[in-house]
């Protein structure tokens, strides 16, 4: 079926057992990724972005973690797959790139060896052939003189080169889905752009990408669809244009408004989202964002579900009336910029 999603996550719930009881980090998250699409996942630190993706690949190995829900990949539930079959999925069908390239590679083996290791884990090829493919992959991701650099150790690579090497490794078996967990956060801006180009190229070759980031700029450049997470739940989800041009959830407003702009009148102070990100331990009963929301009302004590309106693909989890969100956003923004000014005038 052409319209069947590649990855379909339903009601994912991740909780950690701690000394002070169970803490739910991902709370009923559902999303899907279509073949060949780029899904951008945004949210503050601690919003459950990384943990939910690690849960998808079953990389949360701590015995104190429980993962519930369904993760359907090509119709198979990854959470109930035997370990052996799960290993065949990891690296071959779903590859993952992590945030910090400095520590992501084993320090005692050459970069080429580590890429060849992954190839040989999934395909019956000779050592030599695997190495040759590793050299080819390194050259594809833009590492100059790949044949000799393949024999270098990770500590001999710069951060950007390492992230390229990690991406080359992720691409080695032609995965249908690449999960990239903040792949550019630890890198220079110029290198960031190169890495994003690499993702785009990969996507052009047919792989779907889930890109986790807290950088709205990155998302606006590359994503087809956007998932905004807050407090381990989906706050808003929709096509990129819809989310950026008509954001519906007050949290998304806050995220977009807090990005500095190059053009236009210079703000005296960058708007921020008041308050602190919600701690996973004390999620409110109702809307997770309610304590920081300027437009909260009685209904927010009840938990909102993701819902669309008018059958569009743009969905959000907020109780505000559907029709005049743009006007409400202006009110909220005015409130956000006014308060600090008043405070400043009052000080002297």
């Amino acid at each position, binding site marked *: 079926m052409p319209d069947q999603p590649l990855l379909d996550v339903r009601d994912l719930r991740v909780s950690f057992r701690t000394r002070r009881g169970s803490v739910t980090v991902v709370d009923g998250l559902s999303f899907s990724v279509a073949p060949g699409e780029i899904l951008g996942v945004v949210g503050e630190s601690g919003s459950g972005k990384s943990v939910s993706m690690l849960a998808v690949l079953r990389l949360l190995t701590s015995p104190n973690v429980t993962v519930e829900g369904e993760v359907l990949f090509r119709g198979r539930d990854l959470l109930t797959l035997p*370990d052996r079959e799960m*290993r065949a999925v*990891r690296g071959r069908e779903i590859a993952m790139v*992590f945030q910090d390239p400095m*520590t992501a590679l084993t*320090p005692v083996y050459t970069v080429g060896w580590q890429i060849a*290791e992954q190839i040989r884990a999934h395909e019956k090829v000779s050592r030599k052939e695997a190495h040759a493919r590793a050299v080819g992959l390194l050259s594809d991701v833009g590492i100059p003189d790949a044949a000799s650099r393949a024999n270098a150790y990770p500590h001999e690579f710069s951060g950007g080169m390492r992230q390229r090497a*990690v991406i080359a490794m992720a691409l080695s078996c032609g995965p249908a889905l690449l999960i990239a967990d903040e792949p550019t956060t630890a890198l220079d801006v110029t290198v960031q752009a190169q890495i994003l180009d690499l993702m785009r190229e990969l996507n052009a070759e047919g792989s779907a990408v889930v890109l986790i980031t807290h950088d709205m700029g990155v998302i606006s450049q590359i994503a087809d669809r956007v998932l905004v997470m807050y407090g381990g739940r989906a706050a808003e989800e929709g096509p990129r244009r819809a989310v950026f041009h008509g954001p519906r959830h007050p949290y998304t407003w806050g995220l977009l408004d807090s990005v500095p702009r190059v053009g236009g009148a210079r703000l005296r102070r960058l708007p921020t989202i008041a308050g602190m990100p919600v701690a996973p331990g004390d999620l409110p009963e109702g809307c997770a964002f309610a304590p920081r929301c300027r437009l909260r009302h009685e209904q927010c004590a009840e938990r909102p579900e993701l819902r669309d309106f008018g059958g569009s693909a743009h969905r959000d989890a907020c109780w505000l009336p559907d029709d005049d969100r743009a006007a409400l956003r202006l009110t909220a923004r005015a409130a956000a910029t006014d308060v600090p000014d008043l405070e400043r005038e009052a000080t002297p």
Partner: protein
Amino acid sequence: MLQFIVKRFASALLVMFAISVLVFLIFFATPGVDPAARIAGRNADPATLAQVRHSFGLDRPMPVRYLLMMRHLLIDRDLESFVNRGSRVIPQIVQATPVTLSLVVGAALIWMTAGIIMGTAAAALRGRAADPLIMLVGVVGVSLPAYWLGEVVNLITQKQLHGSVFSWVPPPGYVGLDHPGQWALHLLFPWLTLALLYAGIYARLLRGEVVGALNEDYVRTARAKGLSERRILIRHALRCSLIPIVSLFGLDFGALVGGAALLTEVVFGLPGIGKLTFDALQNLDLPVIMGTVLYAAFFVVLANALVDILYARLDPRARHA
């Protein structure tokens, strides 16, 4: 590489020189210690003392005495013991070396194998009952001193159960390598006794290292690559954990070959370096002490140099540093 070896060799020479001077000073410049009185025996009259002093060259100035001793030890190689006149130092050391080497190399093989298996298994099984159990065995091993354990082993294998289960155990002592079977049989219990102590330490240390490595990002990458848990444990986590173990091993091995296996040697009646040093110390037999101390220093320095080379092989980050 050549530069590295030359540098190592020079530093080894320097260390050995410093140690020889130190030992010499301890014995000759410490107030109240008179080697001539020891050699001449109790209640010797002043004439005898003077004669002893003269015949051993003890009436010469200190630097001359040092140089003379070094010349006899290293160049003429005919330095004689003060206590047993006529018995030369170098042949004694040459005779004792294979005994100590046999003991320590065999024990090292056993304790490294056991320590690596126990430590890795405990780390892989952490959170389950087997982990604290293995570590408990390790603690017990660490807590049993060689002189006690050796005596108990002797008591059981030579006396209590010698008539039944352990009738194949030969009497304590050493048999040369020209009879490999007997050699191994004589050394079996000394090996196990010495290895038990170190296996416990190494297992505990390695467990900590492997547990730490399993939480590293590169292990998560390895999992995401789709490798098997076994491969991740051995090729990635254990491989990186071996680096600190090797440096510890070098120190322990060097010290043991240099004579630190004394207790095991004495308990099992093995005439090794430790035993030789021990006897020489009891008699204040300076030439023998000087010989064994220099020998020990040489092995400690050599072991450290070997560790440095091995370290560079194990850890590519250390190669260009």
